[in-house]
């Protein structure tokens, strides 16, 4: 492609700078807009942004190179990213992508000659209950099939702006199949704040304590403890952050909470802010959910108008709190709380060294609480209705309910709310899953559960989960599933630490080798050793959990790979004959000596 010149770059960027100001924290938000304007981040823009923000060029290039949705090389005016989550894959996305590329004479990963279009894949877009899914210039396409792709091809050929495409292409349903107290009961905006003000912060913290609420984002840390630690930490400012990164493949419950229960979530943040003493909050919205941005902004505006956000909330002098939405740009690691904070600061999403923890040194080094969307929704309910009511649900160590995002081989994929303690049998019955073989609980970083274990229950004591519940029926190729997960981790490793940066790649290579019928018993040993290194030497949770699917398969599903293994003790690490292909093409040879068995 011709190198393009950008003589007018400063004028072109002026309105973007105008919107975002000169704080380096705004870097990622600025880069998102630059990507939209130019369909990549031109070197000239990097120089210009660096000068505008007064940061080194390397800082801008570093961020531009980190996030999947930003690119340092041009992509198409229309950029279509097919979701490559395992459920999208089972629903036929690989075939659909080939179909689409074939139709438009395009190769995945390449840009069309006229710069009009590029097609690629992306990590789970959170539409598992209505896939196959994709993103076009960041907007979600659901329920893809040939008919829809034909239409999309027409629209692109006709250069119709994405905002004028038929709305049915972008329809996203909530698919709430089962609601409990969190999703089912009415909630009057303001109720939780009123109750908090009436009761006082300390007393509300006691209610949180009594509720036994634990974080819903995965780690299950006590909310009362986190909030009181932050409350007790000295700082110039305290911050309340809502983690809406929802990057774990197979998880989509936060999408639904933000779409239909945003008041509950904002209210949870506001209550938390009151308790920890924050005046500023952030909602970190994953880039894949930017379609929710306008709606969420409207909710915030409505709440400001109703006196539920802004200065002197509900007339309480000095109770000031407002929420700013920050968009991510395609990076699973930014769900990890300290990476999320880095990203909020406009940096690469690289997990910090801990200690110190965010509750004492978070956003801009100030005391910060990061909580999951669902956690905050629960907190709002507890603030309004008290802790005991909440603690009455669930099990001893897991009070309340849990929202599951159910997808895969079942008749009724969607959102299910259960009290903790529900068994997998019950869930599978409810969602219409028949002849189930395995369930991936909590996504690739979670636990692969075999049918023998379907009597186990969802709870912190037994099967903790951040919400994903992906069902596989008998006959599914489990090795292919694990391969998908291995690719996911290799793609999403942030690259900071050796064991994960290199280990996830090596793991991917070996799983591929086995899937391609070249694996041996020694490769299984290799996988175990790699798993051990990643689990014990990595810097953060991504590396610690990256080997989980592989190790679970090795332990519980020998049938998935045994038949694939060669009888030999050893097989070459690479495809010998394939490695001769280039030379065969160059020399035009095809004799026996130009091949290897």
């Amino acid at each position: 492609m011709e190198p393009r010149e950008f003589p007018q770059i400063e004028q072109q960027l002026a309105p973007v700078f105008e919107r975002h100001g000169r704080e380096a924290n705004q870097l990622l938000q600025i880069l998102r807009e630059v990507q939209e304007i130019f369909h990549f981040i031109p070197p000239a823009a990097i120089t210009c942004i660096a000068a505008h923000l007064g940061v080194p060029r390397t800082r801008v290039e570093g961020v531009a190179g980190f996030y999947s949705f930003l690119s340092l090389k041009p992509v198409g005016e229309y950029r279509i990213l097919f979701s490559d989550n395992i459920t999208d894959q089972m629903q036929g996305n690989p075939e659909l992508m080939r179909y689409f590329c074939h139709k438009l004479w395009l190769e995945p990963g390449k840009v069309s000659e006229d710069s009009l279009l590029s097609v690629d894949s992306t990590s789970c877009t959170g539409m598992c209950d209505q896939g196959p899914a994709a993103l076009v210039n960041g907007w979600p396409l659901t329920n893809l099939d040939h008919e829809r792709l034909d239409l999309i091809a027409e629209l692109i050929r006709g250069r119709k702006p994405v905002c004028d495409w038929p709305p049915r292409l972008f329809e996203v349903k909530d698919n709430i199949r089962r609601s409990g107290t969190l999703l089912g009961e009415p909630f009057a905006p303001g109720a939780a704040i009123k109750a908090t003000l009436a009761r006082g912060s300390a007393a509300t913290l006691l209610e949180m304590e009594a509720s036994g609420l634990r974080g819903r984002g995965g780690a299950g840390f006590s909310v009362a403890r986190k909030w009181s630690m932050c409350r007790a930490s000295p700082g110039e400012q305290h911050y309340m952050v809502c983690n809406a990164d929802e990057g774990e493949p197979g998880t989509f419950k936060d999408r639904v909470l933000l779409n239909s229960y945003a008041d509950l979530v904002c209210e949870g943040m506001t209550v938390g802010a009151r308790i920890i003493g924050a005046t500023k909050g952030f909602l970190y919205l994953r880039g894949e959910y930017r379609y929710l941005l306008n709606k969420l902004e409207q909710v915030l505006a409505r709440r400001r108008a109703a006196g539920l956000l802004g200065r002197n909330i509900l007339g309480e002098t000095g109770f000031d709190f407002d929420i700013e939405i920050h968009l991510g740009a395609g990076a699973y690691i930014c769900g990890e709380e300290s990476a999320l904070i880095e990203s909020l600061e406009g940096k690469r999403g690289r997990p910090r060294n801990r200690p110190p923890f965010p509750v004492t040194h978070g956003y801009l080094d100030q005391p910060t609480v990061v909580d999951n969307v669902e956690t905050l929704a629960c907190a709002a309910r507890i603030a309004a209705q008290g802790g005991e009511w909440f603690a009455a649900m669930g099990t001893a160590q897991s009070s309340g309910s849990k929202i599951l995002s159910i997808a895969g081989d079942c008749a009724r994929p969607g959102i299910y709310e259960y009290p903790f303690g529900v068994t997998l049998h019950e869930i599978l019955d409810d969602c219409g899953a028949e002849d189930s073989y395995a369930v991936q609980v909590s996504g690739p970083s979670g636990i692969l559960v075999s049918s023998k274990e379907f009597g186990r229950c969802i709870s912190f004591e037994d099967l903790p989960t951040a919400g994903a519940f992906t069902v596989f029926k008998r006959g599914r190729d489990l090795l292919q599933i694990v391969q998908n997960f291995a690719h996911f981790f290799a793609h999403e490793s942030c690259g900071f630490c050796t064991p994960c940066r290199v280990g996830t790649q090596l793991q991917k290579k070996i799983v591929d080798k086995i899937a391609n019928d070249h694996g041996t018993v020694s490769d299984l040993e290799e996988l175990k050793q790699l798993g051990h290194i990643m689990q014990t030497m990595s810097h953060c949770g991504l590396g610690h959990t990256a080997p989980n699917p592989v190790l679970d398969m090795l332990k519980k599903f020998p049938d998935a790979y045994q038949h694939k293994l060669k009888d030999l003790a050893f097989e070459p690490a690479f495809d010998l004959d394939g490695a001769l292909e280039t030379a065969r093409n160059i020399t035009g040879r095809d004799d026996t000596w130009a091949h290897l068995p």
Partner: protein
Amino acid sequence: MNEKRKIRLATCSLAGCFGCHMSLLDIDEKLFDLLGMIEFDRTPFTDIKHCGPCDIGIVEGGVSNAENVHVLKEFRKHCKVLVAIGACAITGGVPALRNNIDLWDCFQEVYLYEGGLEGNQIPNDPELPLPFDKVYPVYEVVKVDYFLPGCPPSADTIWKFLTDLIEGREPKLDYEMLRYD
């Protein structure tokens, strides 16, 4: 005690420079001691063309072309213990410097450009070993039992390693014997 059966040893050089072999010869008068303990099968020192059943096979050089694979597999098949010796066998070594260069560019440079060989034509003779797109270490093609790094390993190192191996000890290198250059 009965006369001990001599250990049968084969060596070869794949994509290497014979430096490791030269270093082996550098053990000088100890060669006689060595010959008391071993007998050679296929090596560049003998004229045996194919490797027969052996106790120890020593491979120098990386795997750069199809012929290397045939030789290497023959060694693996016939040798009870396979040793990769030298940087090239263990990491690809200096020949692997070409791994950053596109194979097509290599061919063009060698055969097509001004001053190239063969009358400006890329040869397609089946007699010529067909190169891989990259040079690979030996252990990525066959299972390797022992590694003896160095470029080349010094004569003393080779001697220490071989005597350990022949006398049935787990080979162990002192700090100053373990070198990658």
